[in-house]
């Protein structure tokens, strides 16, 4: 149920971020629902495939949709139970999203284009630097709750013990927000609005996709954004004690707030220079490990 709501709402999140940015910079901007129209339009179009590409190029959009979908199944979206959780599923969560990225990077290299090679290389670089931040955040959550599944860490019977663990959990939430900015290819890591192939990262990785495949990739990316936005929201707003509908309402409100925050970040700063991005990503890991140290001390 909550999974369905999220599947329907996910494409609105990039729209909310873009609208926030437009309002803050004094423009009218595209409607919030723009991505729905784009998807609808793209699905009906034909596709152009490069003669260089092989089956890898065709499989990647499917993997780009299936992996965030299955990952959503590991999260307790209603604040109680996950559709399919198990001990140690946080490893599966991270590895699953890595699988999606792996196929996308290979699909980019499949085209033999230097632009897409560039995007793939940067994508792989930033993903590898942000991986420790995600895992260290899970470590802090495991320490705070004593649970080893995402269901137990983010929902379940016991709410997250705010109080003694509050500073550590705040650090984790901020670190997860940084992870979101990286994974969803937003400023300051990547700029979804740039139109120069040399400075794009995610956009240039999927440069050769068109038609239905592009629609699948765009939808998969929106799901990814919802997925990673749900993590800090679940850490900050424990919803196990609310009725299901209210818990879902809080989640949606939280997702919209995160999307607005992404828009605010985007309109208040420029993208970092490429050589500076690793420092930003390492900062996310350092923040999460500080959280772990704090949690070990208490």
């Amino acid at each position, binding site marked *: 149920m909550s999974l369905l709501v999220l599947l329907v709402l996910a494409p609105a999140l990039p729209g909310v971020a873009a609208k926030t940015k437009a309002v803050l910079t004094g423009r009218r901007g595209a409607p919030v629902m723009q991505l729905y129209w784009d998807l609808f339009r793209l699905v009906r179009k034909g596709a152009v495939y490069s003669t260089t590409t092989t089956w890898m190029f*065709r499989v990647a*959009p499917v993997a780009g949709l*299936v992996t965030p979908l299955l990952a959503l199944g590991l999260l307790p979206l209603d604040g109680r139970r996950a559709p399919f959780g*198990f001990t140690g599923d946080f490893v599966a969560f991270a590895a699953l999203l890595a699988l999606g990225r792996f196929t996308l990077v290979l699909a980019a290299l499949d085209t033999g284009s230097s632009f897409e090679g560039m995007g793939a290389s940067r994508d792989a670089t930033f993903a590898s630097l942000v991986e420790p931040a*995600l895992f260290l955040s899970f*470590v802090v959550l495991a320490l705070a709750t004593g649970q*080893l599944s995402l269901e137990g860490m983010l929902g379940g019977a016991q709410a997250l013990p705010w109080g003694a663990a509050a500073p550590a959990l705040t650090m984790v939430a901020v670190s997860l927000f940084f992870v979101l900015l990286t994974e969803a290819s937003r400023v300051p890591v990547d700029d979804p609005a740039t139109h120069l192939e040399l400075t794009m990262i995610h956009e240039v990785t999927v440069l050769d996709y068109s038609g239905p*495949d592009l629609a699948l990739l765009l939808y998969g990316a929106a799901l990814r954004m919802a997925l990673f936005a749900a993590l800090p929201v679940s850490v900050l707003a424990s919803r196990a004690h609310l009725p299901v509908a209210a818990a879902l309402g809080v989640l949606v409100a939280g997702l919209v707030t995160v999307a607005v925050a992404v828009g605010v970040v985007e309109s208040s700063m420029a993208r970092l220079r490429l050589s500076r991005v690793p420092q930003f990503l390492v900062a996310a890991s350092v923040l999460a490990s500080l959280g772990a140290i704090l949690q070990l001390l208490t």
Partner: protein
Amino acid sequence: MSLCFVGLALIAASAACAALLRTRLVLAERAYGLLVSAGCVAAAIPAFRVLAGGSAAVVRLSIPAPSGPWVFGLDFLSAAFLLVILGPGLASALYGVRALGSAQDRRGVATARALFAVELVALVLVVLARAVVPFLVAWEVMAVLAYFLVTFDNERTEVRRAGWVYLVATHAGTLALIALFTSWAGVGGGLTFDALAARAGSLPAGGALVLCLALFGFGLKAGLVPLHFWLPDAHGSAPSHVSALMSGVVIKMGIYGLIRVVSLLGAPPAWWGWLVLVSGVVSGVLGVLWALAQHDLKRLLAYHSVENIGIILIGLGTGALGAAYGVPLVAVLGFAGAVLHTVNHALFKSLLFLGAGATVHATGTRIMDRLGGLGRRMPLTWVSFLIGSVAIVGLPPLNGFVSEWVVYLGLLHGGTSGGSIRLVLFGVAGLAIIGGLALACFAKVCGIVFLGVPRSDAALHGHEVSAGMLGPMFGLAGVCVFIGLAPGLAVGPALVVGASIARVSLPSSVGDVLAGIVRLGIWSLVLVMLLALGAVAWGAIRRRRSIARAETWGCGYALPSARMQYTASSFAAPLLAAYGPLAGVHETLDRGGGAFHTHASELVLERAILPAWAAVRGVLGRLRPLQQGRLWVYLLYVIATLLLLLLYLARGVSP
């Protein structure tokens, strides 16, 4: 157990077959393949039986010999490593039959095949030996034969150099092992492993000397940083099926030795566990970083062995810490993760080396920047290489993910229990860094070698290899998929092995882990089915749309060429730049000639060991005047020594 020796006899017979039937080539090949297969299967049956039976069936076979009885036995640990040897060993042997088939030097080929079979026998005896002398004999036979296997192509200078460095390194290790066992056995003590275990309690400082010597001696064989310096050259320049055996199996004997010492000694002190854990993280991160910097496909894979040894050591260190701090669940999970990752790495690393061998066979080059587009020309090799890559990166739904999952669980259970063991949590960060870098590295290998447009004529004329070479590759890939989709069948026995190493009975809290692994298996199946279903459904939707074929979009540039593609070096450049001098990449820019080179240096060998060796030679060179080459000088030395000894003794007896 006796079936093991039947298997060994069959493998030995295959060696004789290869050596004697030199004139009748086809018959020799068939008989060799048949005998090796039969031998490996026969020897593996008792191992499966031990692992499936769930009882430690230690069968003893004592051969009376000088230097104490030669005891052999088969327990859980030996059984697990027996499978590590026999599976990839068989695949590599069969692949070798085909791969060497086209070589001109028949005599050399026959010898190489025979030596390969004997190497398998030696490896099996290493894990079956239960006394010091047979262990060391088998160890030395294994090490020396590996030298001859590596230097098969001995007309090339770099092969001879690699073999030489390997020989020096392995003997330094053997020396440490001899010191280890003699210091452990003491004067007049028994030399069987049982006798050693009985003496474990009386070792000074909790066996600190033994443990340090083990980490050095076995660590040299396993190739943990900084003792890995011999490994990339040796594994890179050997024939591919030998690289597969070396990287998949032979270095694992170092891991076996370490675990065997721990299981004989009982719970090691905590500092040793931390030492192993930290060296695991260092090996893992540096190994994969250096792999990323390589231009040579096989050297790259060799550095990935260093990385995976790091992951295994992270598991081993976690297990040792669990034992030291008395947390049985952590000990069992750590050791089980280490053993399972050893099995898995043996499978996918030999698969990857065989795949690399196939590309070298088809194109004649190992330089990645000269390859490209091989996925179209060698579709089956590409699929099996891709399976190996997904497995080694630790992605679902394959086996590498399963063993990393076990190690992660061990680390987190350590972190959520009480006391100083909680610090193992930071191993999680290490594993995460390793995983991310490995993904980037294999994205580079797969993308540059198999996708895109051929970058040279060699790659353009690449062709699929024969079924005799593909068969072993798909066999290994099949096992990787099987363990990934039925993880319970591998994790269950691995936990039993882990408990036997830690010398505890399986704690009841393991039930939670087993329930998790069952659900993980279901989840992996769902993932595979969703991917397959999605691909089919999406293919149907696509067919209804108009499809156009065109050149890759070059942003308006009309004449793209293969040389304009991203290369392996450019793909890795941003990550290597982020890690700075740790990566050890030298860039040289020739502005006049418009040439730019990057060179990945072997930091430990080039910056530490060779300079240190030069310094030692410089100092020892000052002693050279002692060697005059004249008889009277040496007579003088003898007489002087005798006189000094007499004086020393006289001092002793005087009142």
